[in-house]
């Protein structure tokens, strides 16, 4: 199994989720994160104190899928999260050794 971890623009979340469903992805986990990268933020000024907002709001999606689905999932995410503007984000793939569904105790492929 592979953990696909994608950092995307927040407003693309629904698109990505919809793109994954047809592939049979039945679950995923998202977190609100802040991203630092090539995309530049705005400057905030509070009574003369300037802060450059170098961290921009992003969404991190973590989805564990069987190894053979990984390519399709990566493809689907990269398409649905794409705007072509700087800051679209990244996809990383990590190997998962084991998985378990807490409710049933099912493991690995069954657990996803």
């Amino acid at each position, binding site marked *: 199994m592979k953990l696909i971890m994608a950092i995307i623009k927040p*407003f693309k979340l*629904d698109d990505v989720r919809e793109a994954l469903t047809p592939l049979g992805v039945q679950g995923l986990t998202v977190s609100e994160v802040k991203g630092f990268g090539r995309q530049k933020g*705005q*400057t*905030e*000024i*509070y009574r003369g104190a300037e802060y450059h*907002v170098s961290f921009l709001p992003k969404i991190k999606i973590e989805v564990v899928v069987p190894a053979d689905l990984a390519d399709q999932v990566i493809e689907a995410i990269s398409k649905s999260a794409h705007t072509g*503007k700087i800051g679209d984000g990244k996809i990383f793939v990590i190997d998962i050794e084991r998985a378990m569904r807490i409710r049933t105790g099912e493991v690995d492929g069954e657990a996803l």
Partner: protein
Amino acid sequence: MIKPRNFWGLGVLLFALVLALPAFADDAAPAVAAAAAAVPAGPPKLDSGDTAWMLTSTALVLMMTIPGLALFYAGMVRKKNVLATMMQSFAICCIVTLVWTVAGYSIAFTPGNAYMGDFSRILLNGIAGHIEKGNDTIAFVLASGIKDVADMTTTIPETVYMMFQMTFAIITPALIAGAFADRMKFSALCIFITLWSLIVYAPIAHWVWAPSGWANQMGVLDFAGGTVVHINAGIAGLMCALVLGKRVGYGSDNMAPYNLSYAVIGASLLWVGWFGFNAGSAVAANGRAGMAMTVTQIATAAAALGWMFAEWITKGKPSVLGAISGAVAGLVAITPASGYVLPGGSIVIGVAAGIICFWSATSLKHMLGYDDSLDAFGVHGIGGIVGALLTGVFAYGPLSATDASPDGSPGGLAQLKLQAIGVVSTLVYSGVMTLILLMITKALVGLRVGQEEEREGLDIVLHGEQIF
């Protein structure tokens, strides 16, 4: 796409229409004219109790806009627009204060003619006229400036009257902001509101509340601003929603409110402040003020429960947003009626407003397909119409009776007709003028932020700030 040039013609047409309206209801005028008979002897005196209540009412109505409306609206938008939404109310408060000082008050409340006042109070010129020995003891007379039309004699200083009215002039354009929330440029807002306050608000206030105003003379009843404030803001909001177009992502993105608890605080402060709005419109601390406060409370509660139960039955759950929206709808609807109706009528007005506004904000809007972000039209426009018309049904004569007019203005078909004239004129004049002013603003600075900026949120894009 609406073309700007068409509007100029419409504007002219409109003026003509308005000039013609009084002719429709000439029969109603004599009662008001007769009121002129009662002439007070000697300069009218201040009453400290009435003045105390009007000072308080002014504070209460200011509180309705900041922080009341600011919170009510900010509580319904997404996180990225919370500050910008509060800023709209706050900035409008500041801008209109100066506009009103410079010319708005003069246009609205000096005699002039039936359509607008004159320029005798420009920059509040002369308002300190009879101050002597600090404590001015002469009360303000709202002069009709017309033979055979009665002046309105108050028991408070002119400064207090001017200030009380200023708070109404502030909240009205602030209400419009609900329609264009989440997407209007701040520079456009500044320009549009300045013009709107002078060209739309001040004249309509004159029509309805100045003794010389045509609607007032005709007998249109609007105790605290059903037409002047709510229908006016509501229709202007609808125009804004139509001209600006829908928010990016409308219908697909999740636009759930970020923090409805702000909206609850806002609605609560609106409710409390509305006691100043309605009971303050008696311009005295007397029995009429007491009755206005009573019917305000009852109609509001009835409307809140009306919306709540309508939603509970049709959607399965009574939402908090529903209950507070209903309360605001009730406050809106009772506004024109507040000094004219009794508790019984107020329950009917409340329930009607709650249910009808529930329908307009949750169904009508989606049927018609415009994106009035926070339902400025659905709640204030529709609620104002319900209230203005029902005032004509439920008005109880003795509440508005005077020596000169011992029957007062009782409800009935004749009054209902007058009310309809008030409603239609406001809808037409405000609607058309708002379109014209939007076109002017668009030509000057553009109306809407870019799509990327809208996505990023107005807080950071327009004001360089955010909440965390």
